């Protein structure tokens, strides 16, 4: 039987939740990822599935302040997807938060779609704060935003950025880290998706970044190591960041999230070959079965 794709029109509220409430949201996001990548016939399955739990808590657990009806609201918190190739998880998240219709997910990576292969600021897709896709630039942008908020505008906004673990092999990432600590950016939360996978293999084999938590510590971050699939862990980490911000701790926060590439889809889990591939029809069927 041919696979027919439909996207639900479900949206979720952004509010304080018990940890067990996130699994339904994460499941919806993971299904969106499989469906949209299958339709696009290209794109990155592994890291998007692997970060779905983090996105669920960040956007639907009352962590970030935003208003889908007013995406340009001047007091909103901002999220920069430094690992731009992971945009399908962000596109699904923003649709499920109500920034635009999930209908747009049908046209991921297609000509004329606002859902570009890597986030394009020129497309004016609500919720996208910058173009990203050239690895390593998004965190510096986030540092600039956080500096502008804290030191120029002196407001209470927060800035979140997510990088891959292969991504932090880029040298400028560490220039960003240095500046974040130098400017005491307690309004900055840097999430590292530590799946130990990148295109050519294991991060430890391609170019080791370890011990990465010690590096962030040495740079002057408050470092929180978590299991990136444990909702309790993720929730607590963001709560710690919030208290760091409110108490003006004078340090940026780094959340090192141990994740599994392809999480939730049996045949993709922990396999780096799934970094940049979409599922074909057979694979999408199995994946959607796994994600019931």
């Amino acid at each position, binding site marked *: 039987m041919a696979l027919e794709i439909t996207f639900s029109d479900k949206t979720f509220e952004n509010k304080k939740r018990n940890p067990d409430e996130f699994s339904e949201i994460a499941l919806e996001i993971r299904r969106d990822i499989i469906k949209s990548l299958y339709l696009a016939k290209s794109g990155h399955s592994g890291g998007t599935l692997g970060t779905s739990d983090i996105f669920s808590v960040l956007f639907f657990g009352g962590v970030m302040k935003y208003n889908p009806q007013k995406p340009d609201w001047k007091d909103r918190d901002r999220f920069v997807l430094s690992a731009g190739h992971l945009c399908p998880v962000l596109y699904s998240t923003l649709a499920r938060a109500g920034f635009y219709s999930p209908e747009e997910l049908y046209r991921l990576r297609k000509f004329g779609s606002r859902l*570009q292969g890597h986030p394009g600021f020129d497309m004016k897709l609500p919720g996208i704060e910058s173009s990203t896709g050239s690895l390593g630039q998004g965190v510096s942008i986030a540092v600039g935003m956080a500096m502008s908020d804290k030191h120029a505008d002196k407001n209470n906004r927060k800035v979140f950025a997510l990088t891959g673990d292969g991504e932090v*092999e880029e040298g400028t990432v560490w220039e960003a880290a240095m500046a974040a600590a130098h400017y005491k950016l307690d309004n900055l939360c840097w999430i590292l998706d530590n799946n130990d996978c990148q295109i050519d293999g294991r991060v430890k*084999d391609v170019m080791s970044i370890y011990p990465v938590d010690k590096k962030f510590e040495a740079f002057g971050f408050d470092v929180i190591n978590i299991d990136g699939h444990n909702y309790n862990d993720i929730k607590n980490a963001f709560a710690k960041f919030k208290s760091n911000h409110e108490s003006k701790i004078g340090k940026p926060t780094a959340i090192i999230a141990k994740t599994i590439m392809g999480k939730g889809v049996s045949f993709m889990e922990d396999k780096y070959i799934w970094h940049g591939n979409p599922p074909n029809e057979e694979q999408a069927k199995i994946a959607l079965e796994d994600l019931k």
Partner: protein
Amino acid sequence: MNEIKLLGKKPTRHGFGEGLVVLGEKYDNVIVLGGDITGSVMTSYFQEKFPERFFSIGVAEQNATTIAAGFALSGKIAFFASYSAFSAFRNADQLRISVAYNDINVKIGGGHAGITVGPDGATHQALEEIAFIRTLPNMTLVVPADYTEAKKATIAIGEKFGPCFIRFGRSAVPMFTTDDSPFALGKANILREGKDVAIVACGLLVWEALLAAEELSKKGINARVINNHTIKPIDVETLVNAARDCGCMVTAEEHQVHGGLGGAVAEVTAKNYPVPIEFVGVRDKFGCSGEPEELMVKFGLTWKEIYASALKVIERRDKGFIGYRQVKDVEDYKE
């Protein structure tokens, strides 16, 4: 002149990967650096064959470029390849100082170049690197037209002393040169003789230029088609002869219309033999997601634009001074 035939389709990056293996077999001082996309830019072939001469640097283009310089300063022929968006721009300063200024044996591969990388979108569609790379003193820049030429060009830059950059693409493109076709760095190839208009192209657009010439011939117009694979050093003689013989030119490239092959041709002709030129390329815009063929059409990179530009430039030539654009109808590239 031999009849040019379509011999199938293959990506130019395969020619690059295979050329590296040939170099590895011939010279034991060839080393290759990986930038976490070895399977995309086909440095994986070299890695499999010569694992002891392959070094993974991770996602770190600036570092890889300067590490390559260190190898070159230690007597190696050092190759580094990534996507052209990152191996020409992320490392621009490193290329300028540590590579070009030092004038050493660093060879850069710029893969997945141009609009035809497709669905990845604007961030990955390098459309400006010809302009940048060709301004660097000491650099050689080559943009092969097909798989076979990419292989020859890779071997040629390995054997030429000094900094070199080779630009190639992701998708399978028409193959029409053979092992016997002439190829020398810095020597453009005339693929089709004609004296009515000269079409100067590089990369993927050479095939489109041949298609355009075929269509023009049906109207009795004989176009000279020049495969200008080496952008630097540019073949002044072939270009000036074309300007003199045809009196008008069209340039075609998978690149911005500003500063690329068209710019290089205009510099040569303006100085030596000014003729009207029309430029086919991306018109001062960023790309976007889409399928390669679809984007070629949307961004005006097919034989049809070359054909239309040829008719236009012939008309301008024939009007003589009247063909020079008046201030009121000067064209630029904004829509």
